[in-house]
């Protein structure tokens, strides 16, 4: 396994980021109908540095094999504080074994949080985690090696 190159996405990457998010939706959707206008708004914000940022790992054919998107946003309904919230963290299923892509994305995310904290002058928290109906326990174990566990969420389908 060679060095994995993670780069910050730019506007020209938006179509491939969208293609990756379609793969995420297909692989691991909670079942909510996707609104493409909303999805594109978040891709635009992250790939153009408008409140968000996106990192990608390129494939050999110009496609994107893995990506993380993160935005600064209000931390919750009860507070005026802000945090960095991961919007997506996805490695294509066929690229998960032995590639180191997930670790590389996580390292990028931690570096981004540190750099943003330095710019802001305080330690802005970053919240990330798996959302999945498949292999959730294994994903939780992997995430727990990278951050402090602060919660979970639960869904009763309508």
């Amino acid at each position: 396994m060679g060095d994995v190159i993670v780069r910050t996405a730019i506007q020209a990457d938006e179509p491939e980021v969208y293609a990756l998010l379609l793969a995420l939706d297909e692989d691991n959707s909670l079942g909510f109908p996707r609104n493409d206008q909303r999805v594109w708004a978040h891709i635009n914000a992250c790939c153009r540095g408008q409140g968000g940022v996106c990192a990608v790992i390129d494939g050999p054919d110009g496609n994107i094999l893995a990506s993380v998107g993160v935005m600064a946003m209000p931390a919750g309904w009860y507070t005026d504080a802000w945090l960095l919230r991961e919007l997506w963290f996805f490695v294509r299923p066929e690229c998960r074994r032995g590639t180191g892509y997930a670790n590389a994305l996580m390292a990028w995310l931690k570096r981004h949080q540190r750099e943003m904290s330095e710019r802001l002058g305080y330690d802005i928290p970053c919240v990330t985690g798996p959302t999945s109906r498949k292999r959730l326990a294994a994903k939780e174990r992997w995430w727990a090696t990278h951050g402090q566990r602060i919660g979970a969420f639960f869904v009763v389908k309508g």
Partner: protein
Amino acid sequence: VRRAGEADVEPLLAFVITCLSESALQPLSPAKIAALVWRAVRMEHAIAGIIEGDNGIEASVGLFVSQLHYTDEPHLRDGWLGVRSDCRRVNHGARLVQFSKWAQERMQEAAGRPIPLFLEIMTTEALEPKLRLYQRQIPQVGASFAWGTAVPGRLDQKRIGNGRAH
């Protein structure tokens, strides 16, 4: 569990602030909390359930309609779900979860379409027992992890642009 009404606002607001101050990861905004409590007691796309005892509110849940960032479909989610510290061995938590399911069913009946219920735990205080309470009753679909906490257990920060955190 009974539905909260406008007459419950004052004690409910005090309860919610106490409840969140024990477990919230971020500094509280009293104005935002008051706004959601008022919405809940007025049933403005929100609802609150309370359990009372001889000494006032012992437990409460507040639910409101929200959306995920990638969809227009609404869901019902919790703003708070808490049990007073001296009442934690009497199954109030499970009753509040049941109330939440009841509220979701009524809401989707009224809407005429499916409206999922999201319950989220986000705390570092007694996380494991809270996880077990929820896991016994509702399918878990996600987990949250964080770093960048100035103090372990508290995401201690000021607002963006407000200078250096203390």
